[in-house]
């Protein structure tokens, strides 16, 4: 087994290490995705200008 192969499988515990890294990445991407969804949701009501007279409270 070359060093690269040992490294790739992390000495047999590959699932744990790469799983941890992958799961972290997924969590961070999910955070950005949720923020993107929230930004999208912001834009929708502002398209309707007739009732948005600044009287509503957030």
């Amino acid at each position, binding site marked *: 087994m070359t060093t690269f192969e040992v490294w790739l499988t992390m000495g047999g515990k590959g699932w744990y290490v790469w799983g*941890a890294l992958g799961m972290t990445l997924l969590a*961070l991407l999910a955070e950005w995705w949720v923020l993107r969804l929230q930004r999208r949701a*912001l834009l929708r009501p502002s398209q309707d200008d007739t009732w948005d007279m*600044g009287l509503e409270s957030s």
Partner: protein
Amino acid sequence: MGTRVNWFYFAAPSRCYRLAQRLQPWLLAAALVLAAWGLYWGLWLAPTDAQQGEVYRIVFVHVPAAWMSMVIYLAMAGWAAVGLVWRSRLSHMMAQALAPTGALMTFVALWTGALWGQPTWGTWWVWDARLTSELLLLFLYLGYMALHASIEDVDRADRAASLLAIVGAINVPVIYFSVVWWNTLHQGASIGPSGSSMAEPMLRALLVMVAAAWCYTLAAVLARLRVILLKRERHTAWATRVLQAQETNA
């Protein structure tokens, strides 16, 4: 006499929004670069650990997440205090922006801790000081977010949640040390990831990853702050302009 610093310059929502908008891409880029560098160093260059083999490399994600989770809580409590003392809405909004990222960091720390524990000590959960305090910290974050979400009046929600954050922050060291003490009391059953000294190259990679975590956190928190600002200040002039500009770009 020199120029006087106006500490409250960025307390105006519109200025804060613009600052956040400008800083965000740089912070994100820095986070990516630092993470790439740190992971290259930590995953590839750093030597194999004598006891744990390759699995210890999870520490390069676990430890930064754990540290950030605690730092973010302190920052949240700090902004909460500023908001209560100087009655600035923006400080409360900043605390509100910090909470979800902090909760996420805590969750990542717990998850990666479990994935570290299973191959190393044979159990998915280890009742050691760090993981147990992380679990309690997660509850504190969730409590803050739940309290803020369930009070209808935004100003009361801000101040109530901020009060809770401060009471929680004072308790965090007490809770942490009592959990450490609890661990010593009931030893024997748990062999946990206690503070092991790290070799030099591993430590350097870890510090780089911590810096990456800082930059990422700031970027995410500023992005969330922008969303909160637009949502709450929707009826003001500057916000309508920003929203209309975004609309034409979308």
